[in-house]
């Protein structure tokens, strides 16, 4: 594998829920170091697309490869697909880190417990090493003081920063952000965006579903605009936000500006 191997590659992805077709053939490539921002109205399929990357949603058709390795899939009886190889699925998933809209921290574990959980339990890292690394990443997201707190005793912004630390602790090939600031009070959005901005500056590979247009414009290397399950327009942020071609995108940008 050389550097040209895409970190995430999606080829002709389709997804339908029953008769509702949510994704209608999406192809997208994120090379190492890319920060791909996915924007679009609600119901455009952007979260579904993101959740297909780690198979939280199984595609109905199409192929997804992480660092050149495609998920082994097999057809299901109802005409869809499902992961065929559980070990491969777990191995690939462990190389991806996802930050959720609702944080989804484990409430029965402390901040430190949340961050060392995957390194110790999934990656088999010795506990001491995991703790040392967890302290580093907690320091990075500004939670060094909070390692013994339980998630419920943190603000939303702190919880989300803890969730980001949990992802950093596994040194993922790519980080997936599913509207990471949508559940936060407005005054807490900034602290989370700042952390993500720092990570983007380090050239970490990210795919970021977001409603924060100003932020997407600042940090993204590539912006994808989804409309009704298709990529309607994509390109560098200056082009997407400065000179949008599709009338839908023009209208979308006007409506949130």
């Amino acid at each position, binding site marked *: 594998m050389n550097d040209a191997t895409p970190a995430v590659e999606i080829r002709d992805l389709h997804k339908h829920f029953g008769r509702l077709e949510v994704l209608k053939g999406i192809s997208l490539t994120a090379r190492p170091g890319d920060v791909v921002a996915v924007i679009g109205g609600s119901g455009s399929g952007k979260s579904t697309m993101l959740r297909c990357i780690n198979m939280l949603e199984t595609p109905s058709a199409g192929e997804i490869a992480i660092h050149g390795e495609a998920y082994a899939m097999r057809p299901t009886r109802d005409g869809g697909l499902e992961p065929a190889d559980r070990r491969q699925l777990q191995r690939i998933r462990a190389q991806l880190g996802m930050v959720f809209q*609702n944080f989804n921290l484990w409430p029965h574990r402390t901040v430190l417990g949340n961050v060392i959980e995957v390194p110790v339990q999934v990656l088999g890292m010795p506990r001491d090493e995991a703790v040392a690394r967890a302290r580093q990443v907690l320091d990075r997201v500004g939670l060094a003081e909070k390692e013994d707190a339980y998630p419920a005793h943190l603000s939303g912004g702190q919880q989300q920063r803890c969730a980001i630390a949990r992802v950093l602790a596994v040194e993922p090939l790519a980080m997936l952000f599913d509207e990471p600031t949508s559940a936060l009070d407005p005054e807490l959005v900034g602290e989370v965006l700042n952390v993500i901005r720092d990570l983007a500056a380090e050239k970490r590979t990210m795919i970021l579903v977001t409603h924060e247009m100003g932020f997407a414009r600042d940090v993204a290397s590539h912006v994808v605009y989804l409309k009704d399950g298709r990529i309607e327009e994509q390109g560098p942020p200056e082009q997407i936000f400065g000179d949008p071609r599709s009338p839908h995108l023009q209208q979308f940008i006007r409506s949130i500006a």
Partner: protein
Amino acid sequence: MIDAMDFSLLALSSPGWGGALLAGFLRSVELAAGGYLLGLVIGLLGATAKLYGGRVLRDIAEIYTLLIRAVPELVLMLLFYYVGTDLLNKLMGAMGREGIDIDGLSAGILVIGLVQGGYATEVIRGAIRAVPPGQIEAALAFGMSPLKVLRRVTLPAMTPHALPGMANLWMIATKDTALLAVIGFSELTLVTKQAAAATREYFLFFIAAGLLYLALTLISNLGLRWLERRARRGLPAAA
């Protein structure tokens, strides 16, 4: 009436019945604890079968909880005890082995455990469903195996939700042991009855037995409260 009671009858050694009463009490606690633990194990298996099992497992668990909860406990106990041991012996006989003699304690624990398991299945199933799915999803997204998700996330996260119901079941288990008196277990109730009949001091002995059951409940409450505090740490104070 109180004046007329002869408290020396409660003395620990003969001719007092205190020692026998205490032995019966300990037997009751043993039966309750053993049956409760067995019920907990059955409940965990039953709940996971109902929520994550294939069709066959789900149906088995469904029929089990339906029957257990539909039939009076006393009937179940008589059924399990007499019919169960009989069937087991016939089965062993058919396989060419000699019948086994299940000792009373194991049989009693088995009987209580089977009844408790039916209720525990439902308590735990409800508790697991109360865990926000996002927490489980997060674990899966990080590459945890389903079994590990169950052990590291689902079960600990459901514990605070299960505790009130499981505490209730413990109280019920301590009292269900009294039903075993009917089968002839020398647990607290049967011993009390014997002592009362022998001395004709019904009031004295049944009050004493009641106080012992009460003491067990009060002590249990302390332990359960501690457990609940521990399981709920990390959860918001009011819930």
